[in-house]
């Protein structure tokens, strides 16, 4: 789960991290009121989950009421890489002399957290990591102990942070780790962490992504509003409880198990088709889950053909077959041709049960994918 900047900043501020004075606004009027209260200059920042908001026009600086109004008018309601901006954060602009990067994430290779500091803040840190990794100092964290203060200092001094602000920056890093740890974050970043001319540190931006698997013990975060779904279909998948990713192709794909569904996508591509989505219905296959999955792919206007590939371990082929029959019988006319392949537990029973008036049946994964790719080509032709 990805928090908005304003949400992350609230959490950061509660933990004692220095954030600029700011108000959230969802109308131009409120934005101007906020700017007047805070005093100019202010930054007006679109609250959507898009990287490079600044370059895309989602952040503007305002020196006066008029500029604040103009900025809010231009940003509120704008479309930013597919997201509609419904809210802006109006924030005191920081007069900085230096920009740092500090962040905590999970080092997957080492299987432990890592704390990072760089004096190259304010730019895309992944680019820095790729081009000059030596510009980022890293401290692996023993999660049983947490980030030791000496590690924070070593990272900060090692990165070449000015000695005058090093103590405060190390303190920010320690607090950020504690927050990351306490809130089950996957990432917690401040980029840039601004250094002002009077040697204060200010978190000018704030990123916090939270482990979905840990939301059960972060009820206040779970309750936060987010718009991390890119479109209505992904939102719908979230409601259905599916792992779903929308792609650009026309072959709808339903399967069980992430690896097998990915493989099905790859085979669609291998046989010359274009996958329209990744949809993992998971273990088990009650009729309503099957129906929901079909509803998902049929709802995608790009989909021209569907392949339904189940390898039963826990999932039983006969149950899936009944679910498919039930779901498709509800249609007067089945929207798109569905090719079904069942294997594993009770697959043979399933094949017999399947109503071949409603679906096409194939015996192997390869054949099923090829058939679906052909179906899609026929429709497009």
């Amino acid at each position, binding site marked *: 789960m990805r928090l908005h900047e304003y949400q992350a900043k609230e959490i950061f501020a509660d933990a004692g991290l220095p954030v600029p004075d700011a108000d959230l606004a969802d109308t131009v009027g409120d934005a101007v009121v906020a700017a007047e209260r805070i005093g100019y200059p202010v930054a007006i920042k679109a609250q959507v989950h898009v990287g490079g908001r600044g370059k895309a026009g989602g952040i503007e600086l305002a020196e006066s009421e008029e500029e604040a109004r103009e900025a809010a008018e231009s940003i509120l309601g704008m479309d930013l890489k597919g997201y509609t901006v419904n809210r802006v954060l109006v924030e005191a602009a920081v007069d900085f002399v230096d920009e740092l990067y500090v962040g905590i994430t999970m080092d997957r290779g080492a299987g432990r957290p890592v704390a990072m500091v760089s004096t190259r803040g304010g730019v895309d840190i992944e680019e820095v990591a790729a081009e000059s990794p030596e510009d980022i100092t890293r401290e692996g964290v023993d999660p049983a102990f947490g980030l030791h203060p000496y590690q924070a200092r070593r990272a900060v001094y090692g990165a070449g942070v000015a000695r005058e602000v090093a103590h405060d920056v190390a303190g920010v890093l320690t607090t950020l780790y504690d927050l990351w740890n306490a809130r089950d974050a996957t990432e917690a970043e401040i980029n840039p962490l601004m250094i002002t001319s009077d040697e204060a540190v200010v978190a000018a931006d704030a990123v916090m992504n939270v482990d979905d*698997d840990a939301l059960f013990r972060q009820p206040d975060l779970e309750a936060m509003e987010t718009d991390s779904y890119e479109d209505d279909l992904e939102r719908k998948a979230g409601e259905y409880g599916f792992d779903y*990713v929308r792609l650009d192709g026309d072959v709808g794909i339903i399967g069980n198990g992430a690896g097998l569904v*990915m493989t099905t*996508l790859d085979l669609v591509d291998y046989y010359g088709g274009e996958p329209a989505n990744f949809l993992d219905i998971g273990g088990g296959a009650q009729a309503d889950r099957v129906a929901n999955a079909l509803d998902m792919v049929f709802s995608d206007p790009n989909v021209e053909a569907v392949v339904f590939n189940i390898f039963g371990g826990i999932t039983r082929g006969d149950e899936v077959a009944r679910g498919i029959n039930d779901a498709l019988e509800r249609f007067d006319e089945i929207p798109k041709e569905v090719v079904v392949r069942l*294997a594993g537990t009770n697959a043979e029973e399933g094949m017999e049960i399947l109503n071949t008036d409603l679906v096409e049946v194939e015996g192997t994964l390869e054949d099923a994918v090829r058939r679906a790719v052909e179906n899609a080509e026929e429709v497009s032709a």
Partner: protein
Amino acid sequence: MSVFVDGSTRVIVQGITGGEGKFHTEGMIEYGTNVVAGAVPGRGGQEVAGVPVYDTVTEAAEAEAADASVVFVPPAFAADALFEGLDSPLDLVVAITEGIPTQDMARVNKRLSEVDTRLIGPNCPGIITPGEAKLGILPGNVFEAGNVGLVSRSGTLTYQVVSNLTDRGLGQTTAIGIGGDPIIGTDFVDALAAFEDDPGTEAVVMCGEIGGEDEEQAAEYIAEGMSTPVVGFIAGRTAPPGKRMGHAGAIVSGSGTGTAESKIEALGEAGVPVGDTPEEVADSVEDLL
């Protein structure tokens, strides 16, 4: 021959009284696995699927001379169950549970570095030595005893690839689902090393997927002179960057690491044939044997 488990492995089921625990315990016993005990706090003295239940893993392990456990404990309590398994006289803990918070697994990972017990998983289908024992939820009927080792980050993809092998009479020594999470116990290198040491394993199939660098490390291990031949498969060639493909571990980061290309290339450089389809994997294995 086999790795990690065989017919003599004495198995505890942690969380045996839950729905999944009970169901799969029955499945494991039916397959012939030597399930000797369950462990569920407060349920000591009961019996499930004909197996005695103890309040703690230590008690179960000592009373029944167990050497492995399978964990079906729900995610919120799973890390504690893993710590308990790792602090008991067991050689192997297999964690089936899906959805354990990653930070919990980082702490478990730290503990792993302090003990000799092996962890497989979490978020994995388990491990099976066909005809002898299965620890987990794998459908036993897909597997057949033979001389091919298999290690995979995925569940159903494993079944698919195994069925392509079995259909041609290419049986398996042991098949290991190592799990799709970002932090897991046994990784590819561990499994490859074990298969290399197993005289019964004459070829190994390794099913990787996008995300992380485990496959690249495995390629390095193979390139350094692994004696048993390996055939590879990588799922997720068509996955777009930044999107999590089901598994928490299956994500191509925005900066381009963890891609299928990188993994396929690394394996290729290590001399590992990488199949474009599960059928091609079986073809390659057949060629090798």
